[in-house]
């Protein structure tokens, strides 16, 4: 493509740029408005850090803005994802939503939370039976999603015998797909355990350095230790990669108990 054509394309697309707000206002401000189409975003974290909770929360926020969203769960069931979303939204422990053993107050909260989620039923779809990269790509194309979550990248099946080779291929294909379909793709990634044990403490996504290389935005979540009787949990969202600007910053977050919703710490900004 020639420079002149690209400049015209930039001018044409300027008017149609639409930011997808994550719902975390300081993060959205930091990103000049939110996430964008054609971007590949990675959220990393160790087991139990709440990666899927955050991704589902962001997806719900984006669906509420009128974007067509999809969640590909290659780990837990659709029922569990929905229970988490209902629990987050109604501040109920997700396991209790799933089991149905609820107090009268929780029952009322669940009903309200379900109603708030059902409103956006036409803008959210959940897939827990697609594991092959080609199936995921096809579903994104056919459904014309504008934002998707792939939870998680290490479980995507594709060609390549070695994990490094496979994950590099998957990451690159998803980046290509984001551009081709004009969709924003958020992948969840485990973090490398060996990195955690390394002397420099450099955090890396598990399996392939190319996950971070191809991503436009890369984050990872760190859960902080909090006393058992604390009214909320604490977490940090680190900005590892930012193709739009500077990285290395972090956002302090609270995690509501028992629902598990991420909210911003009231007085602390990105530093």
């Amino acid at each position: 493509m020639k420079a002149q054509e690209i400049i015209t394309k930039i001018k044409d697309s300027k008017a149609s740029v639409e930011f997808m707000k994550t719902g975390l206002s300081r993060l959205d401000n930091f990103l000049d408005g939110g996430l964008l189409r054609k971007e590949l975003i990675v959220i990393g974290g160790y087991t139990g850090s709440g990666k899927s909770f955050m991704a589902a929360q962001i997806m719900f926020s984006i669906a509420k803005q009128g974007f067509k969203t999809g969640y590909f769960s290659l780990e837990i069931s659709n029922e569990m994802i929905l229970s988490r979303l209902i629990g987050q939204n109604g501040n109920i422990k997700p396991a209790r939503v799933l089991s149905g053993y609820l107090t009268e107050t929780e029952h009322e909260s669940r009903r309200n939370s379900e109603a708030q989620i059902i409103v956006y039923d036409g803008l959210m779809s959940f897939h827990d039976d697609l594991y092959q990269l080609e199936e995921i790509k096809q579903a994104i194309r056919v459904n014309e999603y504008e934002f998707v979550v792939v939870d998680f990248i290490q479980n995507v099946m594709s060609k390549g015998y070695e994990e490094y080779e496979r994950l590099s291929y998957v990451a690159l294909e998803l980046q290509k797909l984001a551009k081709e379909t004009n969709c924003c793709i958020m992948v969840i990634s485990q973090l490398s355990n060996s990195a955690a044990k390394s002397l420099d403490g450099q955090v890396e996504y598990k399996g392939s350095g190319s996950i971070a290389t191809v991503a436009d935005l890369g984050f990872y979540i760190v859960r902080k230790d909090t006393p058992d009787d604390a009214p909320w949990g604490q977490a940090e969202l680190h900005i590892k990669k930012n193709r739009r600007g500077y990285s290395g910053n972090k956002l302090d977050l609270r995690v509501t108990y028992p629902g598990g919703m991420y909210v911003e710490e009231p007085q602390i900004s990105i530093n």
Partner: protein
Amino acid sequence: MSKNRKLALIESFLKTLDELYEQEESAENIAQKLEIVKQLVKIYEN
């Protein structure tokens, strides 16, 4: 919110509302229909 996004929301709300009217009426069903109407009003007010 852009006009396109509002239209996408309204279209989706009406489709879901249609589906809810096809279902048996219950406390959950009524709460869901009311929530959709509430959100529709919010869009029109903005």
